[in-house]
């Protein structure tokens, strides 16, 4: 049986189910208990699990991130709530020097099973320090797994997998999607890491899109369909590990690709995926792989400017049309 629930509810269910199943799991972060976070994603959990397992912290991100690492090294399984993805800079040392490297540095003796839940996404008029999509910088660090759910269905399935994983996992939730609904099974399910989802099949062009960019890709695909262009949409679901095979297979079929991600474009997620496609599907490509990341500017507050900085469905469709028509975007 499936029912429609919000992304927010899906996250909440995943945590509640895993906390019921495994008493070593606990939640820690700012205003996660009574307030249930500013986005109200965690409402109700403290009532069920109590303040010993749903722990409100002071505003000490490095501190509670570090504590989660220590707790994870000693048989607990913490889920860290980082209120805004932009605060990831504050926890980088504990995340990247400690959590990510401990298993390796200890020659496999110590484990750090923790989940860092945080968010991403602009166009919420939250300005430069509350709008960043920083998945690329953590994806660069060996030892971390990185998930980017694109709907309530993925949010639940990936989060449950993350909580059971014996490694540090960072999950980026798009804060603009919390109220979006999707069909989610009532029965338990998990989504394995490293398995991309072919969200829509198509023949002419592959759109590889992460998180909320999957919606953007779908809207673009709808528009393209009207022009007789059949777009295949691939949602990697995790960018570490990355399901290269599914992406390459699609591009080998369509011969064209656009990669869309809401992080800044330069040195971002689109670079890695585009570089892999360009290298490994080289002889199948009819056109250069086009990257569409967020503009390489801090996120501006003004609505008149902010909306210009993120990839849009019409932008994707335009590029797709040009590629399919054989118009060179970067004529030599």
């Amino acid at each position, binding site marked *: 049986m499936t029912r429609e629930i919000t992304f927010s509810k899906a996250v909440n269910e995943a945590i509640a189910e895993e906390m019921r199943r495994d008493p070593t799991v606990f939640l820690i972060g*700012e*205003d996660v208990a*009574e*307030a249930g976070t*500013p986005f109200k994603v965690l409402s109700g959990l403290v009532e069920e699990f109590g303040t010993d397992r749903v722990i*409100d*912290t*002071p*505003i*000490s991100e*490095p*501190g509670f991130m570090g504590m989660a690492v220590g707790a994870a090294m000693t048989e607990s399984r913490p889920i860290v709530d980082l209120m805004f993805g*932009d*605060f990831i800079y*504050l926890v980088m040392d504990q995340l990247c020097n400690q959590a990510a490297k401990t298993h390796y540095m200890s020659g496999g003796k110590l484990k750090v099973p923790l989940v860092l839940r945080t968010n991403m996404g602009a166009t*919420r*008029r*939250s*300005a*430069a*320090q*509350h709008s960043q999509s920083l998945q690329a910088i953590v994806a660069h660090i060996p030892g971390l797994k990185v998930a980017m759910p694109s709907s309530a269905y993925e949010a639940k399935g990936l989060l449950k997998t993350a909580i059971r994983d014996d490694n540090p996992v960072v999950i980026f939730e798009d804060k603009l999607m919390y109220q979006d609904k999707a069909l989610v099974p009532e029965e338990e399910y998990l989504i394995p890491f490293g398995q991309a989802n072919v969200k829509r099949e198509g023949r002419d062009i592959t759109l590889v899109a992460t998180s909320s960019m999957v919606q953007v890709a779908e809207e673009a695909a709808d528009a393209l369909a009207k022009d007789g262009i059949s777009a295949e949409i691939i949602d990697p679901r995790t960018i570490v590990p990355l399901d290269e095979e599914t992406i390459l297979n699609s591009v080998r079929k369509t011969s064209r690709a656009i990669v869309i991600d809401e992080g*800044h*474009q*330069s040195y971002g997620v689109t670079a890695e995926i585009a570089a892999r496609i360009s290298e490994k599907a080289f002889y199948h490509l009819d056109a250069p792989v086009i*990257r*569409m*990341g*967020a*503009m*390489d*500017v*801090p996120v*501006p*507050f*003004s*609505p*008149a*400017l902010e909306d*210009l*900085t*993120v*990839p849009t469905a019409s*932008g994707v469709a335009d590029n797709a049309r040009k590629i399919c028509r054989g118009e060179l975007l970067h004529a030599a």
Partner: protein
Amino acid sequence: MSDTRTHNTEDYLRMYKQMVRIRAFEDNANQLYLSAKMPGLTHMYSGQEAVAVGICEALTDEDRITSTHRGHGHCVAKGAEFKAMFCELLGKAEGYCRGKGGSMHIADQSHGNLGANAIVGGSMGIATGAALSAKHLGQDFVTVCFFGDGATAQGLWYEVMNMAALWKLPVIYACENNGYSEYTKTEEIAAGSLTARAEAFGIEAFEVDGQDVLAVNDLTTQLVERCRKGEGPFFIELKTYRYHGHHVGDINRDYYRSKDEEAEWKTVRDPITNFGKWLEDEKILSADELVAINNEIKAEAEAAVEYALNAPYPDTSEVDMHVFAGVDHALDYLGGARG
């Protein structure tokens, strides 16, 4: 009201007006939010006016401040204009930051306001560095670092206090303890004593009633003078209260604080009402004069809102300007993404 220095009438008048200006600004900003005319969210300063005004009135335009996510009060108190502020809150080109910063990043370089900050505690390094700069450049400006009780949980504060103490920097750490960080009471997130934390670094620490503008101003004036003589840094804990929710959208607050508590602060401890009463008692201003001031400022604020609502947005070409100083358009320079 405690008033150990000799102020002249002008000083009193300015302090009163500045507090009323902050309140008027916030009332209008809240209204803009409630009527869905303002993009995003904002954090109201109402209730804390005596802190910003008492402190900033002890400073010159050369003195610097760093501000917070709850920064409109600091901005007004440090000398900013309504029009450019409302324009900024609405993302308009005539805003202090050309609409790029918004409420959480409003800065006013010309009056020494180095900017609001959306990272709690994020400006503690900046303020201390400005003080280092004063020493390094041989200038005598003082920097005040505003932050909330919640921000004392950020490790950065202890790092910079240590350096400020070691190097005797002219910086004043002003903690506005309004009893809450977001939806959590201060005692749940702060162990021990805040003043003891500063004192442990050998920093002189003071507690003052943050609802009493004269007490705040007197203390700050002394400390600013001592800073200029090389006797800094200092720490002040100011007990105060925010009247609104954590942000404008935080309407149902019963689960973390009672309506009674809010009512008590508003009726008994309002910094503006109380200072107004004192001015009347001391025969510095009459009741009528007070009303006239309030009305005038209200009208000024409303006119500024009107102006800002009609002001133009920045041109789309501005989107990649100001990424780098000295570079007109970042995307040409970087060959980067066009969005």
